[in-house]
């Protein structure tokens, strides 16, 4: 089983939700519970262990919020 | 008619339509985008035509064609876009075509910024294009005045067959004030556009719109005839507001929105017992030279000060008018910075301190 991890630079996130639409595992969601200093609900990953490190989320993010490790 | 609250840009567009303008050719640029947007919406309603040209260069040349075909036509832009129109403006002036051009000035040079400025004064009044020519330059201070001047501007353009520029700034374009669209107080006898290229059916000479005179003698005669027209304009069309000049120790020269700020300063100064006057040129070209001359001869006037949103441009015309009779000072902010009343007041005090010493 491949271990992978995504890291969000939440301050850069603008809450556009694009990343949530491309995750094959459906684990990227918006964090409705918090806001960054720009006033956006940032994207985040639930169930990180399901992440396959495909980097789709990172590749579609217009604000280079996401790093992926594998 | 009742008043409506309108943005300066939209009011200017509506004024043009009420003045019979049915053609608008423009290119987007901040801070005047409400003008083309309004025109795009309204012109089809009144049987007119709006085109978003591929550039300012193209827009001004569409204006040339439409004006040459006899239409009332307008374009608008802001500083960099107006620079691109300079060749076209020189052609329009050379071919003696009437039209109205709006410049909602923003900070420069180059791409600069988008906040209000008055640093295109030289370009507007001295001729940013090549050759000997002038635009009639109208500088409204309120939105109501903008509306009135746009409407009269079309008449002036038609009467003298010369382009008219409305020189505003981002602030005037973006703010809202109540306006009334009222008929012009002065009715002009406008000449028929018998010179327009509408088709040569034989009942008049063939019409040619042109600014080429390959024989220098012919070109000189052409230019001199245009300059005779300019003398007429100077005689008939100067507009200026004098405010609180009687007994003023110092007279400030300011136009457009800056003049409004100066008025606030004057009220403030009055409360402090300082008598400050304002000469507000409404026509920047022709410049109200004689008004300055007259006040410069009054003994109570110790000095003049030009206040501008520029590094000092109109001040040259003030100096030319005052012609050494009194000292002429300058205070300005530029790049989109708006002069603050307190700063102006303290400049005024400095000058008064200096000249009364």
């Amino acid at each position, binding site marked *: 089983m491949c271990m992978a991890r995504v890291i969000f630079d939440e301050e850069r996130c603008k809450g556009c939700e694009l990343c949530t639409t491309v995750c094959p595992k459906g684990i990227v969601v918006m964090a409705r519970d918090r806001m960054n200093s*720009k*006033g956006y609900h940032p994207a985040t990953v639930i169930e990180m262990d399901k992440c396959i490190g495909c980097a789709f989320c990172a590749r579609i993010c217009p604000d280079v919020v996401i790093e992926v490790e594998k | 008619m009742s*008043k409506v*609250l309108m943005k300066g840009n939209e009011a200017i567009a509506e004024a043009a339509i009420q003045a019979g303008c049915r053609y608008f050719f423009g290119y987007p640029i*901040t*801070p005047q985008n409400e003008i083309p947007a309004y025109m795009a919406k309204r012109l089809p309603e009144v049987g007119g035509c709006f085109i978003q040209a591929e550039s300012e260069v193209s827009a001004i040349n569409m204006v040339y064609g439409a004006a040459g075909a006899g239409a009332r036509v307008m374009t608008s832009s802001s500083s960099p876009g107006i620079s691109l129109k300079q060749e076209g403006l020189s052609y329009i002036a050379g071919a003696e075509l009437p039209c109205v051009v709006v410049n909602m000035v923003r900070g420069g040079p180059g791409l600069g*910024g*988008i*906040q209000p400025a008055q640093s295109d004064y030289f370009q507007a009044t001295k001729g940013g294009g090549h050759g000997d020519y002038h635009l009639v330059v109208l500088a409204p201070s*309120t939105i109501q005045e903008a509306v009135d001047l746009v409407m009269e501007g079309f008449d002036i353009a038609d009467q003298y067959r010369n382009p008219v520029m409305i020189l505003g700034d*981002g*602030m005037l374009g*973006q*703010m*809202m*004030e*109540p306006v009334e669209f009222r008929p012009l107080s002065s009715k002009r006898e406008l000449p028929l556009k018998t010179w327009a290229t509408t088709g040569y059916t034989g009942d008049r000479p063939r019409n040619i719109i042109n600014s080429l005179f390959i024989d220098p003698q012919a070109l000189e005669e052409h230019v001199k005839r245009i300059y005779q027209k300019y003398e007429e304009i100077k005689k008939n069309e100067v507009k200026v507001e004098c405010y609180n000049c009687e007994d003023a120790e110092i007279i400030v020269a300011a136009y457009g*929105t800056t003049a*409004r*700020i100066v*008025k*606030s300063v004057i*009220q403030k100064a009055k409360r402090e017992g300082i008598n400050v006057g304002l000469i507000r040129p409404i026509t920047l070209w022709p410049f109200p030279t004689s008004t300055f001359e007259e006040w410069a001869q009054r003994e109570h006037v110790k000095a003049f000060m030009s206040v501008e949103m520029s590094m000092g441009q109109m001040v040259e015309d003030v100096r030319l008018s005052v012609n050494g009779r009194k000292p002429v000072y300058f205070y300005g902010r530029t790049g989109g910075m*708006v002069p*603050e*009343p*307190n700063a102006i007041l303290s400049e005024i005090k400095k000058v008064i301190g200096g000249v009364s010493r």
Partner: protein
Amino acid sequence: MTHQIIIAGFGGQGIMLMGQLLAYAGMLEGKNVSWLPSYGPEMRGGTANCNVIISDEPVASPIVTEATAVMVMNRPSLDRFEGAVMRGGLLLVNSSLIDKKASRDDIEVCYIPANEIADQLGNSRVANMVMLGSYIAKTGAVSPAFVIESLRKALGPSKEHFITLNEEALKRGAECVKECVRR
């Protein structure tokens, strides 16, 4: 009498509309008015603010540097515009979004829980009208009826159901101004 007003907040809070309604209402009352927005790259998100003047005299400068009243709808606006209130002037703070207190003691400050009230009315977007209601009640700068008339103009005939909501918001805002602090 001259009202020199600054209204500031986030882009989406209806700041510009508040100012326009005030100016329109002022005009309907036969006053001289002006409305001046800040424009520019700020428009794209970030903060927005506008200046409104309502006066018996013709409006000279449309720029408000010494405000008779300032309304701030978010925290950055408080920081930025608190200093612009003239001595003895009025500061209206949207206490729903601003937890900080004003620091000046030479002005009158009202804390209006505009968003909370709006939420209570079932539409958080009328927080601006709550604030406006407070301002009008406090200063009498314009009559609420004219504000509603202006709003009717702005919304167009189809949105009549909104009007009631907004009227209510104005009223609720007006009720708040009892809680003001004059220091």
